[in-house]
Protein backbone atom coordinates (compact mmCIF):
# COMPACT_ATOMS: atom_id res chain seq x y z
CA UNK A 1 0.00 0.00 0.00
CA UNK A 2 1.21 3.47 -0.83
CA UNK A 3 2.15 5.48 2.22
CA UNK A 4 0.27 8.67 3.02
CA UNK A 5 2.05 11.97 2.51
CA UNK A 6 1.26 15.39 3.98
CA UNK A 7 0.07 18.50 2.21
CA UNK A 8 3.69 19.73 2.25
CA UNK A 9 5.15 16.69 0.50
CA UNK A 10 6.10 18.63 -2.64
CA UNK A 11 8.09 21.05 -0.51
CA UNK A 12 9.92 18.17 1.22
CA UNK A 13 10.78 16.69 -2.19
CA UNK A 14 12.03 20.08 -3.41
CA UNK A 15 14.35 20.22 -0.37
CA UNK A 16 15.68 16.73 -1.17
CA UNK A 17 14.54 15.39 2.19
CA UNK A 18 15.30 11.80 3.11
CA UNK A 19 12.07 10.03 3.95
CA UNK A 20 11.18 7.42 6.53
CA UNK A 21 8.08 5.26 6.89
CA UNK A 22 6.30 6.19 10.10
CA UNK A 23 3.17 4.07 10.56
CA UNK A 24 0.98 4.70 7.53
CA UNK A 25 3.00 7.77 6.58
CA UNK A 26 6.05 8.63 4.55
CA UNK A 27 7.59 11.55 6.45
CA UNK A 28 10.80 13.62 6.13
CA UNK A 29 13.55 12.00 8.24
CA UNK A 30 16.14 14.70 7.61
CA UNK A 31 17.16 17.42 5.19
CA UNK A 32 20.73 18.36 6.07
CA UNK A 33 21.34 15.65 8.66
CA UNK A 34 19.91 14.78 12.07
CA UNK A 35 22.74 16.28 14.15
CA UNK A 36 22.75 19.53 12.18
CA UNK A 37 18.98 19.88 12.53
CA UNK A 38 19.25 19.05 16.24
CA UNK A 39 21.73 21.91 16.59
CA UNK A 40 19.50 24.30 14.61
CA UNK A 41 16.61 23.72 17.04
CA UNK A 42 18.87 24.03 20.13
CA UNK A 43 20.53 27.25 18.93
CA UNK A 44 18.21 29.10 16.48
CA UNK A 45 14.91 27.96 14.97
CA UNK A 46 13.64 25.02 12.93
CA UNK A 47 10.24 23.81 11.78
CA UNK A 48 8.77 20.32 11.59
CA UNK A 49 5.88 19.19 9.44
CA UNK A 50 3.88 17.14 11.95
CA UNK A 51 0.71 16.98 9.88
CA UNK A 52 0.65 13.21 10.30
CA UNK A 53 -0.64 13.81 13.84
CA UNK A 54 -4.39 14.13 14.33
CA UNK A 55 -6.45 17.30 14.77
CA UNK A 56 -9.91 16.80 16.22
CA UNK A 57 -12.18 19.78 16.81
CA UNK A 58 -14.48 19.33 19.80
CA UNK A 59 -17.17 21.73 20.98
CA UNK A 60 -16.49 23.12 24.45
CA UNK A 61 -19.74 21.58 25.73
CA UNK A 62 -18.13 18.11 25.46
CA UNK A 63 -15.48 18.93 28.06
CA UNK A 64 -17.13 17.11 30.99
CA UNK A 65 -17.23 13.91 28.95
CA UNK A 66 -13.55 14.23 28.02
CA UNK A 67 -12.71 14.78 31.68
CA UNK A 68 -13.94 11.23 32.40
CA UNK A 69 -11.40 9.78 29.93
CA UNK A 70 -8.10 11.48 30.84
CA UNK A 71 -5.91 11.63 33.95
CA UNK A 72 -5.52 15.45 33.99
CA UNK A 73 -7.78 18.25 35.17
CA UNK A 74 -9.16 19.91 32.02
CA UNK A 75 -12.43 21.55 33.09
CA UNK A 76 -11.11 24.10 35.57
CA UNK A 77 -7.96 25.26 33.79
CA UNK A 78 -8.32 28.60 31.95
CA UNK A 79 -9.91 28.55 28.50
CA UNK A 80 -6.77 29.68 26.65
CA UNK A 81 -4.51 26.93 28.01
CA UNK A 82 -2.80 24.00 26.34
CA UNK A 83 -2.74 20.73 28.24
CA UNK A 84 -0.63 17.58 27.88
CA UNK A 85 -2.53 14.53 29.10
CA UNK A 86 -3.11 10.82 28.71
CA UNK A 87 -6.20 8.93 27.63
CA UNK A 88 -6.37 5.85 29.88
CA UNK A 89 -8.30 2.63 29.47
CA UNK A 90 -10.25 0.77 32.19
CA UNK A 91 -6.96 -0.68 33.51
CA UNK A 92 -5.41 2.77 33.76
CA UNK A 93 -3.06 2.03 30.87
CA UNK A 94 -2.17 4.64 28.25
CA UNK A 95 -4.31 4.67 25.09
CA UNK A 96 -2.48 7.76 23.86
CA UNK A 97 -0.65 10.82 25.11
CA UNK A 98 -2.13 13.94 23.59
CA UNK A 99 -2.22 17.71 23.59
CA UNK A 100 -5.41 19.70 24.07
CA UNK A 101 -5.63 23.33 22.97
CA UNK A 102 -8.42 25.08 24.83
CA UNK A 103 -10.23 28.02 23.24
CA UNK A 104 -13.38 29.87 24.40
CA UNK A 105 -15.75 27.93 22.19
CA UNK A 106 -13.86 24.75 21.31
CA UNK A 107 -11.02 22.39 22.01
CA UNK A 108 -8.46 21.06 19.52
CA UNK A 109 -7.29 17.56 20.44
CA UNK A 110 -3.98 16.39 18.93
CA UNK A 111 -3.48 12.60 19.13
CA UNK A 112 -0.46 10.74 17.81
CA UNK A 113 -0.64 9.70 14.16
CA UNK A 114 -0.62 5.99 15.00
CA UNK A 115 -3.42 6.41 17.53
CA UNK A 116 -5.76 8.72 15.62
CA UNK A 117 -8.26 6.05 14.57
CA UNK A 118 -8.15 4.43 18.02
CA UNK A 119 -8.87 7.74 19.75
CA UNK A 120 -11.67 8.55 17.32
CA UNK A 121 -13.33 5.18 18.09
CA UNK A 122 -12.78 5.76 21.81
CA UNK A 123 -14.49 9.16 21.62
CA UNK A 124 -17.40 7.71 19.63
CA UNK A 125 -17.79 4.91 22.19
CA UNK A 126 -18.05 7.50 24.95
CA UNK A 127 -20.43 9.79 23.07
CA UNK A 128 -17.93 12.62 22.60
CA UNK A 129 -18.76 14.49 19.41
CA UNK A 130 -15.90 15.79 17.27
CA UNK A 131 -15.00 16.83 13.74
CA UNK A 132 -11.83 15.33 12.28
CA UNK A 133 -9.98 18.32 10.81
CA UNK A 134 -6.82 16.32 10.06
CA UNK A 135 -7.37 15.89 6.28
CA UNK A 136 -8.18 19.59 5.77
CA UNK A 137 -5.35 21.12 7.79
CA UNK A 138 -1.60 21.02 8.38
CA UNK A 139 0.30 21.17 11.67
CA UNK A 140 3.70 22.84 11.80
CA UNK A 141 5.89 22.89 14.92
CA UNK A 142 8.29 25.85 14.98
CA UNK A 143 10.90 25.30 17.68
CA UNK A 144 14.08 26.88 19.02
CA UNK A 145 15.29 29.86 21.07
CA UNK A 146 14.98 32.37 18.19
CA UNK A 147 11.48 31.29 17.18
CA UNK A 148 9.44 33.86 19.10
CA UNK A 149 11.49 36.81 17.89
CA UNK A 150 11.32 35.59 14.30
CA UNK A 151 7.56 35.10 14.11
CA UNK A 152 6.17 37.75 16.47
CA UNK A 153 5.41 40.30 13.74
CA UNK A 154 2.81 37.91 12.33
CA UNK A 155 1.75 35.98 15.43
CA UNK A 156 0.74 37.50 18.74
CA UNK A 157 2.67 35.28 21.13
CA UNK A 158 0.71 33.69 24.00
CA UNK A 159 2.24 32.74 27.36
CA UNK A 160 3.96 29.37 27.54
CA UNK A 161 1.50 26.47 27.28
CA UNK A 162 -1.24 28.84 26.15
CA UNK A 163 -3.18 29.16 22.90
CA UNK A 164 -4.06 31.95 20.50
CA UNK A 165 -5.49 32.41 17.02
CA UNK A 166 -5.57 34.67 14.00
CA UNK A 167 -8.06 34.70 11.14
CA UNK A 168 -6.22 31.81 9.44
CA UNK A 169 -4.31 30.02 12.17
CA UNK A 170 -4.84 28.31 15.50
CA UNK A 171 -1.65 27.96 17.52
CA UNK A 172 -0.19 27.28 20.94
CA UNK A 173 3.14 27.88 22.63
CA UNK A 174 3.87 24.17 22.89
CA UNK A 175 6.29 21.69 21.39
CA UNK A 176 8.17 18.44 21.73
CA UNK A 177 11.81 19.53 21.79
CA UNK A 178 12.34 21.19 25.18
CA UNK A 179 12.79 24.54 23.40
CA UNK A 180 10.52 27.57 23.25
CA UNK A 181 8.30 27.74 20.18
CA UNK A 182 4.81 27.38 18.79
CA UNK A 183 2.79 24.73 17.02
CA UNK A 184 0.55 26.12 14.30
CA UNK A 185 -2.54 24.59 12.68
CA UNK A 186 -3.55 25.98 9.30
CA UNK A 187 -6.08 25.11 6.65
CA UNK A 188 -4.50 23.33 3.69
CA UNK A 189 -4.96 26.39 1.45
CA UNK A 190 -2.95 28.52 3.92
CA UNK A 191 -0.11 26.02 4.30
CA UNK A 192 2.06 27.39 1.52
CA UNK A 193 1.93 31.00 2.72
CA UNK A 194 2.88 29.81 6.22
CA UNK A 195 5.80 27.87 4.80
CA UNK A 196 6.95 30.87 2.75
CA UNK A 197 6.73 33.09 5.82
CA UNK A 198 8.85 30.69 7.89
CA UNK A 199 11.51 30.05 5.24
CA UNK A 200 11.84 33.78 4.47
CA UNK A 201 12.47 34.33 8.18
CA UNK A 202 15.31 31.83 7.97
CA UNK A 203 13.58 29.05 9.90
CA UNK A 204 15.05 25.76 8.64
CA UNK A 205 13.16 22.54 7.87
CA UNK A 206 13.89 19.66 10.28
CA UNK A 207 12.88 16.00 10.07
CA UNK A 208 11.66 13.27 12.38
CA UNK A 209 15.26 12.11 13.03
CA UNK A 210 16.12 15.25 14.96
CA UNK A 211 12.62 15.42 16.44
CA UNK A 212 13.41 12.07 18.07
CA UNK A 213 16.87 13.02 19.40
CA UNK A 214 15.46 16.36 20.60
CA UNK A 215 12.49 14.85 22.46
CA UNK A 216 14.70 12.21 24.05
CA UNK A 217 17.21 14.83 25.23
CA UNK A 218 14.23 16.83 26.56
CA UNK A 219 13.18 13.72 28.58
CA UNK A 220 9.86 13.41 26.72
CA UNK A 221 8.18 10.03 26.08
CA UNK A 222 7.14 8.73 22.66
CA UNK A 223 4.00 6.65 22.26
CA UNK A 224 4.83 3.15 20.99
CA UNK A 225 8.11 3.17 22.95
CA UNK A 226 7.82 4.65 26.48
CA UNK A 227 4.01 4.62 26.42
CA UNK A 228 1.88 1.67 25.30
CA UNK A 229 -1.40 0.04 26.25
CA UNK A 230 0.63 -1.92 28.81
CA UNK A 231 1.77 0.96 31.04
CA UNK A 232 0.03 3.45 33.33
CA UNK A 233 1.01 7.13 33.73
CA UNK A 234 2.36 6.23 37.21
CA UNK A 235 4.58 3.47 35.80
CA UNK A 236 5.75 5.86 33.07
CA UNK A 237 6.86 8.34 35.78
CA UNK A 238 4.33 10.86 34.50
CA UNK A 239 2.72 11.51 37.91
CA UNK A 240 2.76 15.24 37.18
CA UNK A 241 0.03 14.67 34.57
CA UNK A 242 -2.29 13.04 37.14
CA UNK A 243 -4.26 16.08 38.28
CA UNK A 244 -7.81 14.84 37.66
CA UNK A 245 -9.28 14.42 41.15
CA UNK A 246 -12.59 13.08 39.89
CA UNK A 247 -13.32 9.56 38.73
CA UNK A 248 -12.11 8.76 35.21
CA UNK A 249 -11.56 5.60 33.19
CA UNK A 250 -8.93 3.52 35.01
CA UNK A 251 -8.57 5.95 37.92
CA UNK A 252 -8.99 3.18 40.53
CA UNK A 253 -5.85 1.36 39.40
CA UNK A 254 -3.90 4.59 39.03
CA UNK A 255 -4.91 5.66 42.55
CA UNK A 256 -3.89 2.24 43.92
CA UNK A 257 -0.47 2.64 42.35
CA UNK A 258 -0.17 6.18 43.73
CA UNK A 259 -0.99 4.76 47.18
CA UNK A 260 2.04 2.52 47.07
CA UNK A 261 1.03 -0.66 45.25
CA UNK A 262 4.18 -2.04 43.63
CA UNK A 263 4.48 -1.49 39.89
CA UNK A 264 6.97 -1.35 37.07
CA UNK A 265 8.85 1.90 36.63
CA UNK A 266 10.28 3.88 33.72
CA UNK A 267 13.67 5.50 34.38
CA UNK A 268 16.09 7.67 32.43
CA UNK A 269 19.72 6.68 32.00
CA UNK A 270 23.02 7.96 30.68
CA UNK A 271 26.03 6.00 29.48
CA UNK A 272 29.46 7.63 29.61
CA UNK A 273 30.16 6.64 26.01
CA UNK A 274 28.71 7.18 22.59
CA UNK A 275 27.72 3.53 22.42
CA UNK A 276 23.94 3.49 22.11
CA UNK A 277 21.69 1.21 24.18
CA UNK A 278 18.87 0.84 21.67
CA UNK A 279 15.24 -0.22 22.09
CA UNK A 280 14.92 -3.68 23.74
CA UNK A 281 18.48 -3.70 25.07
CA UNK A 282 18.50 -5.52 28.42
CA UNK A 283 19.75 -3.56 31.43
CA UNK A 284 20.17 -4.88 34.99
CA UNK A 285 20.28 -2.64 38.06
CA UNK A 286 21.16 -4.69 41.15
CA UNK A 287 18.65 -7.55 40.95
CA UNK A 288 16.15 -5.69 38.80
CA UNK A 289 15.84 -6.34 35.11
CA UNK A 290 14.81 -3.68 32.62
CA UNK A 291 14.35 -3.20 28.90
CA UNK A 292 15.38 -0.05 27.06
CA UNK A 293 12.38 1.66 25.44
CA UNK A 294 14.36 4.35 23.54
CA UNK A 295 18.05 5.08 23.37
CA UNK A 296 20.16 7.43 21.30
CA UNK A 297 23.12 9.78 21.28
CA UNK A 298 22.65 13.13 23.01
CA UNK A 299 24.49 15.82 21.02
CA UNK A 300 24.35 18.32 23.90
CA UNK A 301 25.60 15.90 26.58
CA UNK A 302 27.92 14.15 24.08
CA UNK A 303 26.96 10.76 25.45
CA UNK A 304 24.37 8.08 25.11
CA UNK A 305 20.98 8.52 26.85
CA UNK A 306 17.63 6.78 27.00
CA UNK A 307 14.62 5.44 28.86
CA UNK A 308 14.49 1.98 30.47
CA UNK A 309 11.46 0.17 31.88
CA UNK A 310 12.21 -1.86 35.04
CA UNK A 311 10.02 -4.69 36.41
CA UNK A 312 9.90 -2.83 39.72
CA UNK A 313 11.77 -0.02 41.48
CA UNK A 314 15.50 -0.79 41.20
CA UNK A 315 17.56 -0.58 44.39
CA UNK A 316 20.75 0.48 42.55
CA UNK A 317 21.50 3.44 40.29
CA UNK A 318 24.13 1.54 38.33
CA UNK A 319 22.82 -0.31 35.28
CA UNK A 320 24.73 -3.00 33.40
CA UNK A 321 23.63 -3.09 29.77
CA UNK A 322 24.19 -5.96 27.39
CA UNK A 323 24.86 -4.08 24.16
CA UNK A 324 25.29 -6.65 21.41
CA UNK A 325 27.21 -9.00 23.68
CA UNK A 326 29.31 -6.33 25.42
CA UNK A 327 28.63 -5.32 29.02
CA UNK A 328 28.47 -1.53 29.27
CA UNK A 329 27.76 0.44 32.45
CA UNK A 330 25.24 3.24 32.69
CA UNK A 331 23.55 5.24 35.42
CA UNK A 332 19.95 5.99 36.32
CA UNK A 333 19.29 9.73 36.32
CA UNK A 334 16.38 11.15 38.25
CA UNK A 335 16.45 14.71 37.00
CA UNK A 336 15.98 15.90 33.44
CA UNK A 337 18.80 15.23 30.96
CA UNK A 338 19.07 18.97 30.19
CA UNK A 339 18.78 21.50 33.02
Amino acid at each position, binding site marked *: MDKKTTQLHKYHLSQEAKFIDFGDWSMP*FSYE*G*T*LKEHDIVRTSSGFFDVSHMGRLEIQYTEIEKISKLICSEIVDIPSNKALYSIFTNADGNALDDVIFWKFNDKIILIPNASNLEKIKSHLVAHNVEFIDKSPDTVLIAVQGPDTIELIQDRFEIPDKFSTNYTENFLYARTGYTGEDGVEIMANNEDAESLLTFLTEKGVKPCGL*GSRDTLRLEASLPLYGFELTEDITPVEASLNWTITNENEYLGSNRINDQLSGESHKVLKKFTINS*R*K*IARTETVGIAGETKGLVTSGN*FSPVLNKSIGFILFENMPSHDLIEFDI*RGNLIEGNIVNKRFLS
Partner: protein
Amino acid sequence: MSDIKYLETHEWYLMKDDEITVGISDFAQNELGDIVYVTLPEVGQEFEKGAAVVEVEATKTVADAYAPMDCTITAVNSQLETEPETINNDPCGDGWMFKAKVNTVDDSGMSYQEYETFVS
Protein backbone atom coordinates in the same frame (compact mmCIF):
# COMPACT_ATOMS: atom_id res chain seq x y z
CA MET B 1 39.62 5.67 -8.01
CA SER B 2 39.12 2.89 -10.54
CA ASP B 3 40.86 0.36 -8.30
CA ILE B 4 38.33 0.69 -5.52
CA LYS B 5 35.94 -2.25 -5.38
CA TYR B 6 32.66 -2.65 -3.54
CA LEU B 7 30.85 -5.43 -1.71
CA GLU B 8 27.13 -6.17 -1.58
CA THR B 9 27.37 -5.39 2.15
CA HIS B 10 28.42 -1.81 1.18
CA GLU B 11 32.09 -1.85 2.14
CA TRP B 12 34.75 -0.62 -0.29
CA TYR B 13 38.31 -1.89 -0.45
CA LEU B 14 41.44 -0.80 -2.26
CA MET B 15 44.04 -3.53 -2.75
CA LYS B 16 47.71 -2.63 -3.19
CA ASP B 17 50.13 -5.53 -3.30
CA ASP B 18 49.07 -7.67 -0.33
CA GLU B 19 47.39 -4.91 1.70
CA ILE B 20 43.80 -3.67 1.61
CA THR B 21 42.31 -0.41 2.86
CA VAL B 22 38.63 -0.73 3.84
CA GLY B 23 35.75 1.64 4.53
CA ILE B 24 32.02 1.93 3.86
CA SER B 25 30.48 3.36 0.71
CA ASP B 26 28.87 6.76 0.25
CA PHE B 27 25.56 4.95 -0.19
CA ALA B 28 26.05 3.19 3.17
CA GLN B 29 26.93 6.34 5.13
CA ASN B 30 23.97 8.10 3.55
CA GLU B 31 21.64 5.29 4.60
CA LEU B 32 23.03 5.22 8.14
CA GLY B 33 22.78 8.97 8.70
CA ASP B 34 24.92 10.73 11.30
CA ILE B 35 27.62 8.39 12.58
CA VAL B 36 28.40 9.05 16.24
CA TYR B 37 30.65 6.16 17.28
CA VAL B 38 32.76 3.38 15.79
CA THR B 39 34.31 0.35 17.48
CA LEU B 40 37.57 -0.31 15.63
CA PRO B 41 39.53 -3.59 15.68
CA GLU B 42 43.04 -3.93 17.11
CA VAL B 43 46.18 -4.18 15.04
CA GLY B 44 47.11 -7.84 14.71
CA GLN B 45 43.54 -9.15 14.92
CA GLU B 46 42.71 -11.72 12.25
CA PHE B 47 39.39 -11.86 10.43
CA GLU B 48 37.86 -14.27 7.99
CA LYS B 49 36.06 -12.98 4.94
CA GLY B 50 32.57 -11.85 5.96
CA ALA B 51 33.39 -11.45 9.67
CA ALA B 52 32.26 -8.23 11.41
CA VAL B 53 35.29 -5.97 11.87
CA VAL B 54 33.92 -2.51 12.68
CA GLU B 55 30.72 -1.61 14.53
CA VAL B 56 29.23 1.66 13.29
CA GLU B 57 26.75 3.51 15.53
CA ALA B 58 24.58 6.09 13.81
CA THR B 59 21.66 8.10 15.19
CA LYS B 60 19.33 6.00 13.04
CA THR B 61 20.72 2.49 13.56
CA VAL B 62 23.81 0.37 14.20
CA ALA B 63 25.60 -1.64 11.50
CA ASP B 64 28.72 -3.76 11.02
CA ALA B 65 31.41 -3.41 8.38
CA TYR B 66 32.68 -6.82 7.24
CA ALA B 67 36.07 -8.13 6.12
CA PRO B 68 36.19 -8.27 2.30
CA MET B 69 38.61 -11.22 2.46
CA ASP B 70 40.68 -13.17 5.02
CA CYS B 71 43.05 -10.59 6.50
CA THR B 72 45.10 -9.39 9.50
CA ILE B 73 44.70 -5.78 10.71
CA THR B 74 47.83 -3.62 10.18
CA ALA B 75 46.40 -0.16 10.93
CA VAL B 76 43.18 1.53 12.09
CA ASN B 77 42.02 5.08 11.42
CA SER B 78 42.17 6.42 14.99
CA GLN B 79 40.82 9.80 13.81
CA LEU B 80 37.42 8.08 13.73
CA GLU B 81 37.52 7.58 17.50
CA THR B 82 37.16 11.31 18.07
CA GLU B 83 35.67 12.37 14.72
CA PRO B 84 33.41 9.54 13.54
CA GLU B 85 31.55 12.04 11.35
CA THR B 86 34.58 11.88 9.02
CA ILE B 87 32.91 8.76 7.57
CA ASN B 88 29.87 10.83 6.62
CA ASN B 89 31.98 13.63 5.19
CA ASP B 90 34.50 11.58 3.19
CA PRO B 91 33.59 7.87 3.26
CA CYS B 92 36.04 6.75 0.56
CA GLY B 93 38.88 9.07 1.61
CA ASP B 94 39.65 10.33 5.13
CA GLY B 95 36.84 8.12 6.43
CA TRP B 96 38.71 4.84 5.76
CA MET B 97 38.39 2.42 8.67
CA PHE B 98 41.26 -0.06 8.64
CA LYS B 99 44.16 -1.45 6.65
CA ALA B 100 44.92 -5.15 6.64
CA LYS B 101 47.37 -7.67 5.24
CA VAL B 102 45.56 -10.06 2.91
CA ASN B 103 45.79 -13.71 3.94
CA THR B 104 43.66 -15.17 1.13
CA VAL B 105 43.20 -13.06 -1.97
CA ASP B 106 39.57 -12.69 -3.06
CA ASP B 107 39.32 -9.76 -5.44
CA SER B 108 35.71 -10.48 -6.38
CA GLY B 109 34.27 -7.07 -5.42
CA MET B 110 32.17 -5.01 -7.79
CA SER B 111 33.48 -2.13 -9.87
CA TYR B 112 32.09 1.35 -9.19
CA GLN B 113 29.70 1.02 -12.16
CA GLU B 114 28.51 -2.42 -11.04
CA TYR B 115 27.98 -1.17 -7.49
CA GLU B 116 26.05 1.89 -8.69
CA THR B 117 23.72 -0.44 -10.59
CA PHE B 118 23.48 -2.70 -7.54
CA VAL B 119 22.31 0.08 -5.20
CA SER B 120 20.04 1.93 -7.64
